């Protein structure tokens, strides 16, 4: 461990490289986290299928490349397909569990998550899939630092998606309905807002965001049927750190998490990278909860 820290000192370009790589994966986490924040805030559902939506987006994009379509089209196509998948899942399952104990929806979405994992495993097989975007690589500092153009595009795309989402919620009619429903669903209903459709749309938008993220993932990294959990868990962490209803905070937290994780993997050894993330999650929860306790409030 000390050796790793020393190495950072000897080869400072590593710091830049780790930071860039961390920020780029962090941006993708952030997109999935937007969706989770939305569904959580509006419907009071913690959506555990988040990662599987990302995975589906990746497979859809991969399928496009098999048909000879450029994977860059995967971003809009996966988003649209996932929107409809999300809306139908809402119709069949989520709508029936959403107004119950939150724990019930947690379990229901968990069930969906293993269902989708296995379904994809049966359909596409368990293989690792990637899609070549055809974009190249930039080199900085005399070839020591490499920046994949695809990852930069993914990062930029993620931030742009976030911006569009914030504007959409603020300005559009559906966005307003979503905000109103989030704050008081009953009141929204007495004003003639069809909250069920708002929920379906919210859930669909969430799925679409994840689908877009998945398209970026398959181009910048890789997908396979069991890739979901890390995205779900990281979305959750990001939302907790940023605080519900704080979309700009989500992107900052996402980038921060990506970077922190990368540095932790480097310094502690990659085998402890995942442990680090989860312990960080617990530590953040404990700290937040004891700060609140001082004011006699609770994380709930």
């Amino acid at each position: 461990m000390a050796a790793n820290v020393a190495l950072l000192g000897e080869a400072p370009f590593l710091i830049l490289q780790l930071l860039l790589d961390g920020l780029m994966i962090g941006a993708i986490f952030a997109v999935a986290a937007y969706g989770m924040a939305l569904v959580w805030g509006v419907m009071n559902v913690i959506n555990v299928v988040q990662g599987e939506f990302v995975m589906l987006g990746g497979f859809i994009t991969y399928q496009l490349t098999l048909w000879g379509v450029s994977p860059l089209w995967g971003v809009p196509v996966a988003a649209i397909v996932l929107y409809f998948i999300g809306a139908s899942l809402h119709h069949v399952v989520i709508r029936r569990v959403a107004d119950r104990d939150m724990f019930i929806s947690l379990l229901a979405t968990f069930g969906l998550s293993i269902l989708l994992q296995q379904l994809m495993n049966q359909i596409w097989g368990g293989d690792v899939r990637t899609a070549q975007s055809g974009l190249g690589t930039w080199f900085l500092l005399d070839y020591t630092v490499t920046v994949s153009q695809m990852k930069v595009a993914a990062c930029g795309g993620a931030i742009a998606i976030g911006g569009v989402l914030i504007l959409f919620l603020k300005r559009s009619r559906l966005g307003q309905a979503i905000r109103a429903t989030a704050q008081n669903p009953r009141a929204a209903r007495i004003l003639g807002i069809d909250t069920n459709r708002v929920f379906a749309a919210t859930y669909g938008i969430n799925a679409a965001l994840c689908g877009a993220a998945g398209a970026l993932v398959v181009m910048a990294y890789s997908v396979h049927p069991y890739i979901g959990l890390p995205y779900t868990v990281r979305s959750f962490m990001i939302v907790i750190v940023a605080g519900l209803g704080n979309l700009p905070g989500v992107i900052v937290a996402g980038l921060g998490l990506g970077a922190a994780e990368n540095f932790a993997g480097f310094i502690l050894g990659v085998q402890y990278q995942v442990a680090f993330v989860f312990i960080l999650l617990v530590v953040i929860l404990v700290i937040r909860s004891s700060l609140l306790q001082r004011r006699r409030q609770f994380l709930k």
Partner: protein
Amino acid sequence: MTLRRQPLLMLAVAAAGVALPFVIPDYRAQIAMLWALVIMAQTWDITGGQTGYNSFGNILFFGVGMYASVVVQRDVGLDYFPGLVLGMVVGAGIAAALAVLLGSMILRMRGHYFAIATLGLGIAAGEIAGGWDYLGAGSGLSPPLFPAPPGTANLFFAYLFFGLAALVFVLLAALYRTRFGLALNAIRDNEDKAEAMGLHTGVYKVTAWTMAAFVLGLVGGAMGNMLGFVDPRDTAFAGATFGVWMVLMAILGGKGTLWGPVLGAVIFHITQELLWTHLLGWQRVALGVIIVGIVVFFPQGILGWARTRWPARHEPREQGSERA
């Protein structure tokens, strides 16, 4: 479940527990697993059902017990059975100590924050074990072979887990009749009010979780030996299987009831075995469908559903007007 029929039912289950390994000897391994699952569901329900603290990370204690027991057997140099017993006890002790330590920190969180914190702990534990060479790191550990002819190992574990399940059941039945049981329910129903009435809620929550941890430590300690191989992520800290199943079984049967977790575990285990046999490769798709089905159609569990269906059957209810 009427109160009057309880002893009869318990007698029936006890008879089944004693007789089954000989009635269907080919299924001894499954019978042992069944009772182990029953215990997992029962212990999950102490916090999840009775106290309203839904944990996704109780698998932590199971895994700790499993590793502790195998390491004790490996390093202490006792014979098989003394080693196993010592290992189970040490594992349970460590699990309980961890529950006290971690519980006093994270049981302050409420609702799903607690659930997620426990999930994080469970996964982190698996990852740490997977990186720790003393515990065999990613290669896992192999416990000693059972020192008896084939088939007896399963017989032994079937009775061990049955005995433990029965003991846990009886103890919990007694516990839930005390005011401590009521205090747990009070926390579940309205923790603010429980505090406002002067209850030491923090102490009770930690105690409840510690009880669950202790028993799970025992189960894990024995389970490692029964399965014959300890893998950090897929056996010991198997959040995606045992970890979730215990929650599911309790909910399926009816959480917050004495019989619910037992019933849930039995139905779940049998269903799952059937799926494995008949739906090769698709069994987890089916499992997903079943999970969703359970929470959509039986959110109160089978017992809860039965109760709304046939409401008159439980608890004596006196009609008649009170004194004016």
